[in-house]
């Protein structure tokens, strides 16, 4: 019988990352034995939610070494656990820290790694999507265990199973040579309003907004609608208009709001994979042939800099008369 592991990531504040619960929910449909590995400050506390989502055992260490030296200590510890317990499959999230650990682990286990996974069909079969999610590719995974899958966030809906986990403390000596990188100052960019992943409405701006200052009209629109987060395309993040934490897409955040409004965004495949699961999609773009219109439920052809301020007025007047 297959044994599936989830490498559970912790947020900087020590709480368990939502992706771990998504992966555990999927793992329940793949195997009878489901276990999680969680390393870093907050790990033991995370065993609660991990157990509630299906982990029967949680290998945990609260050691700060896992937070202060990037991926090598975690890879070392995870590799030791793998050798001892021999899982068949390990699920990771496609996030920065988990990608680091998965990539390094693969070089140690010399087993297969599939990335950008959107569905797992079995312990040796997984799917990914290409060309902006228009094609689904199925892959068979070969070679020695453990197979390593790096899964896109929000690929699965987390559902509690009502279980609880046995906590197995991890005790591993991390050699000094694996502690060379030292994490120093940590900077957090404070974003106002709801988080991108959680907001009911997400409005995202792209290069079509012409200049960084014009993002202000999106913030006004977000305020007018309420429970709305503002995101961006990579083009404007790279241009330095807004911080990376606002980026939506393959290499940014994946969102699934009730309504997604793309404003001055062309709809490149790498952007689309991060938002195409929204319940409803609205697009404003002055180019009638912009690819984003192909998936919009409502598309408006025109100048965003004119339409958005009008929309703010419309919503305000609807609300006050409402």
């Amino acid at each position, binding site marked *: 019988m297959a044994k599936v592991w989830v490498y559970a990531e912790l947020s900087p504040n020590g709480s368990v990352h939502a992706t771990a619960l998504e992966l555990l929910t999927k793992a329940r449909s793949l195997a009878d034995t489901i276990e999680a590995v969680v390393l870093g400050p907050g790990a033991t506390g995370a065993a609660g939610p991990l157990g509630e989502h299906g982990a029967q055992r949680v290998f945990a260490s609260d050691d700060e070494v896992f937070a202060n030296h990037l991926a090598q200590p975690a890879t070392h510890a995870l590799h030791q656990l793998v050798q001892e317990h021999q899982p068949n499959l390990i699920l990771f999230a496609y996030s920065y820290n988990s990608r680091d650990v998965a990539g390094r682990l693969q070089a140690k286990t010399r087993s297969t790694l599939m*990335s950008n996974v959107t569905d797992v069909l079995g312990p040796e079969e997984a799917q990914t999507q290409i060309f902006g999610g228009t094609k689904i590719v199925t892959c068979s995974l070969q070679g020695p265990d453990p197979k390593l899958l790096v899964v896109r966030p929000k690929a699965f809906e987390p559902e509690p199973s009502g279980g609880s986990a046995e906590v197995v403390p991890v005790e591993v000596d991390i050699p000094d040579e694996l502690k060379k990188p030292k994490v120093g100052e940590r900077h957090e960019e404070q974003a106002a309003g709801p988080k991108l992943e959680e907001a009911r409405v997400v409005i995202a701006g792209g290069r079509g907004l012409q200049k960084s200052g014009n993002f202000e009209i999106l913030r006004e629109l977000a305020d007018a609608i309420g429970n709305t987060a503002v995101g961006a395309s990579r083009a404007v993040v790279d241009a330095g208009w807004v911080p990376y934490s606002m980026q939506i897409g393959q290499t940014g955040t994946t969102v699934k709001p009730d309504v997604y409004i793309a404003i001055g965004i062309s709809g490149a495949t790498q952007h689309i994979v991060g938002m195409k699961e929204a319940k409803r999609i609205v697009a404003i773009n002055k180019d009638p042939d912009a690819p984003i219109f192909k998936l919009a439920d409502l598309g408006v052809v025109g100048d965003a800099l004119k339409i958005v301020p009008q929309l703010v007025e419309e919503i305000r007047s609807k609300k006050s008369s409402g």
Partner: protein
Amino acid sequence: MNVVVLSKFIPNPAGTPELGDDFLVKREGVEGGLDPGDEYAVEAALQIAEKAGGEVTAVSMGPEPAMAAVRKALSLGCAKGVLVTDDTLRGSDVLVTATVLAKAIERAGFDLVLAGVESTDGSTGTLPMALAELLGVPSLTFARKVDVTDGSVTIERQTEAGYDVVESALPALVTVTAGATEPRYPTLKGIMQAKQKPVDQLSLSDLGLSADEAKPTQQVTGIEDAPERGAGEIVENEGQGAARIAQFLLEAKVV
């Protein structure tokens, strides 16, 4: 200081890649060049070598046309190139690519390896980390800023919430995001000089690897169309757009 920069060849950087009958991305007989994501790493490598002294070697694995990616890196200022080409490497996965690149880089010698964060076509986003593990060096990933001083490298590492400052002794591997540098353009002189610069073209056996060690462990078994999200209503009249969106939001019960 020896700086190595990974320079992946991708077919048709501006458009959608094409798939062959074997489900692999077509890389032969197509126009292509240096992955745009690697241009930032090349720029960072050149700046570091200009500041700290030393030279930059561009390393790539790919079919014959991949020489275009190496030449592009040379035209920008890299001193020499290494290209690993071998028929057995068609369709290789992350582990095989990392194994090959590790051998080639060890052969070239390095203090610092720079790479992109994810390739435009493969996008596994895990190759550099596997490579770092094989080379036995730290991986400082997702750098939005890189600086090298006195045998150590410092980066600003992008995080979900902001960035962390991370420092490490060399040798090390660093992956560079698009925001980190402003890639230069090749000059005519650079393009001419690139043709004279040395490029080591290596096969698997040159690297002491057997075909067995280059066997991919993944196989595409099928490709199907994803369910379509049919296009919806289009409002062509700019003046009516705002009112229509407001009504749409009302119907969606988010206002």
